[in-house]
């Protein structure tokens, strides 16, 4: 009951959450109004501010050891809407701010409008949509109300879909439309679930709903149906096998900076909500049987996505199929976290670590792949021979990202897979450990397929030497994924803040 009271009152530092939402929204609206060449300046000026706010939130959560809460307008739930930031939200906010800032800095080469050139639509659309996407992600990570989260998810979709087809080629239009149709299927199922939950409990506030659901002796049928509908909808948006069909063409055809953001962050937003739903809203429903189904789909995604990645002829498609596989790892955490066991905390840390390290590694790999495609004019893997000599920094960034995907030390991917592996061994669920090792080997295979020809001694005709600055952005992101492997103990304490263990332990 004490935790309940805490979740329904504004805490010190709560205003930071409001600022974190407002900054990208103001940027998006200003870009739209002022328009033209100013959009880029507004976006790039606000990104450091947003990063600073995210860091301030993370530090505040870490120092106080409590989730931050802000009750909007002083209207308490069930009528009002709360913003909340726990450890998971805080690290996701920082990751999103870093990846978006990196993608924005990288995209200046493609989407800037120097004074001597006439203004065009594509740059304005790119910078406005990038800020819209950032705003939506922030609300997803902070939102405390399921309907508010629905609106955030829709804003995210409406920002992400046009980014896929910015250059207007027919194949990108088809990819964007397919992505949108999958996303709409997902969002309408999610909305149906929220309707059922509101009808049963009269609130959509996560903390209040969790309290009311856990107060009942048996789980109501409406809750089961709602959980099923919302999870199915979110899985379509998170592209978990077998609902991944839209992802490879959409992520592979988008401009490099957009691909990086889509793969690193946008699919994670839906995953984040599935975690919220199963562990915050209805922990009583997350039984071993149900979570095993999720993890089985994840295991299938790892094997299927990795094998398809091995067979791709184009570099960006290979990276996109690797995303399908890496999303699978995220879902292995579910049966390991559930139930308040000694290994649950380890599995939780592993799952979050996988989310973060994949975000950095995959953003780096997409940016590197984009640079290669720009320099060569194509991204056929068979014709990458010798590119390692022409652009060593890019290939190194791609390799470092690959290192993290494989789960080799030292990298965030290694830390993530090691924690999940330990949890699966301790809990006696060996099957997940075997899948993880097999997935690591397959990842090694597809990364080797790219790296090996690039190191061959052949001369290759590149258009112009790649910009050092842009290569540096890709490398910095890859180094971020590696640095996560050196995360100190205190970092894991941060991830545990606000993790809903009490409700589970009671049962």
């Amino acid at each position: 009951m004490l935790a309940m009271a805490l979740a329904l009152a504004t805490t010190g530092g709560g205003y930071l959450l409001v600022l974190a939402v407002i900054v990208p929204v103001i940027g998006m609206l200003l870009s739209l109004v002022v328009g033209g060449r100013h959009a880029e300046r507004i976006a790039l000026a606000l990104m450091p501010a947003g990063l600073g706010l995210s860091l301030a939130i993370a530090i505040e959560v870490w120092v106080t050891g409590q989730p931050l809460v802000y009750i909007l307008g002083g209207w308490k739930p069930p009528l009002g809407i709360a913003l909340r930031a726990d450890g998971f939200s805080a690290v996701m906010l920082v990751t999103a701010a870093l990846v978006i800032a990196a993608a924005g800095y990288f995209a200046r080469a493609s989407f800037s409008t120097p004074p001597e050139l006439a203004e065009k639509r594509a740059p304005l659309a790119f910078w406005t949509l990038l800020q819209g996407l950032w705003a939506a992600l922030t609300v997803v990570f902070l939102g405390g109300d399921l309907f508010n989260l629905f609106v955030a998810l829709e804003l995210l979709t409406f920002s992400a879909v046009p980014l896929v087809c910015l250059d207007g080629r027919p194949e990108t239009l088809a990819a964007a439309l397919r992505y949108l149709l999958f996303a709409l299927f997902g969002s309408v199922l999610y909305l149906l679930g929220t309707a059922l939950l509101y009808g049963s409990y009269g609130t959509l506030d996560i903390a209040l709903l969790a309290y009311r659901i856990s107060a009942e002796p048996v789980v109501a049928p409406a809750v089961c149906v709602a959980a099923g509908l919302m999870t199915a909808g979110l899985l379509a948006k998170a592209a978990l096998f077998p609902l991944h069909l839209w992802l490879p063409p959409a992520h592979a055809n988008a401009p490099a900076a957009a691909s990086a953001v889509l793969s690193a962050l946008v699919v994670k937003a839906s995953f984040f909500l599935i975690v919220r739903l199963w562990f915050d809203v209805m922990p009583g429903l997350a039984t071993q049987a149900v979570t095993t189904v999720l993890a089985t789909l994840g295991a299938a995604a790892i094997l299927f996505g990795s094998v398809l990645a091995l067979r791709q002829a184009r570099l960006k498609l290979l990276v996109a199929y690797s995303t399908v596989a890496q999303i699978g790892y995220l879902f292995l955490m579910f049966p390991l976290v559930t139930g308040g066991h000694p290994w649950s905390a380890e599995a939780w840390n592993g799952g979050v670590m996988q989310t973060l390290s994949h975000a950095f590694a995959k953003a780096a790999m997409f940016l590197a792949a984009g640079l290669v495609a720009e320099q060569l004019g194509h991204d056929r893997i068979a014709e990458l021979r010798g590119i390692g000599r022409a652009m060593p920094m890019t290939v190194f960034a791609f390799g470092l990202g690959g290192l993290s995907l494989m789960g080799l030390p030292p990298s965030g991917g290694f830390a993530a897979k090691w924690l999940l592996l330990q949890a699966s061994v301790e809990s006696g669920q060996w099957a997940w450990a075997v899948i993880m090792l097999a997935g690591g080997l397959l990842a090694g295979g597809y990364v080797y397929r790219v790296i090996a020809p690039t190191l061959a001694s052949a001369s290759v005709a590149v258009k112009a030497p790649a910009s050092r600055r842009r290569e540096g952005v890709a490398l910095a992101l890859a180094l971020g994924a590696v640095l996560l492997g050196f995360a100190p103990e205190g970092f894991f304490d941060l991830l545990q803040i606000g993790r809903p263990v009490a409700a589970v332990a009671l049962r």
Partner: protein
Amino acid sequence: MSAATLAGLTGAALVGFGLYGLLTDPHPLRKILAFNILGSGVFLLFGIIARKGAAAGFTADPVPQAMVITGIVVAFSATALAVALLLRLFQETGRATLDPDASAKTPDAGADG
């Protein structure tokens, strides 16, 4: 049969039709229409929940109505975006399907369909 039950069954039927269309129909335009039918079913359900007044014991709860209005705006924007994408796809390629292997329709046949 009370009005609420009838409305509930209608909503469920709309959700069923919409879901079936969205999953089975290969044509993007029909998928978009199916999404709207599915959405209408969900909005109807919100209406019944408002009637139920689960939140505060009102005769009619205003919160789900606010949600429906937001939901309609979102569904409208989604439909507009989807139709715009489909129109652009048709202008660029002369076909309005997502299947890349399908033979390109003549513009006339496409405009009728």
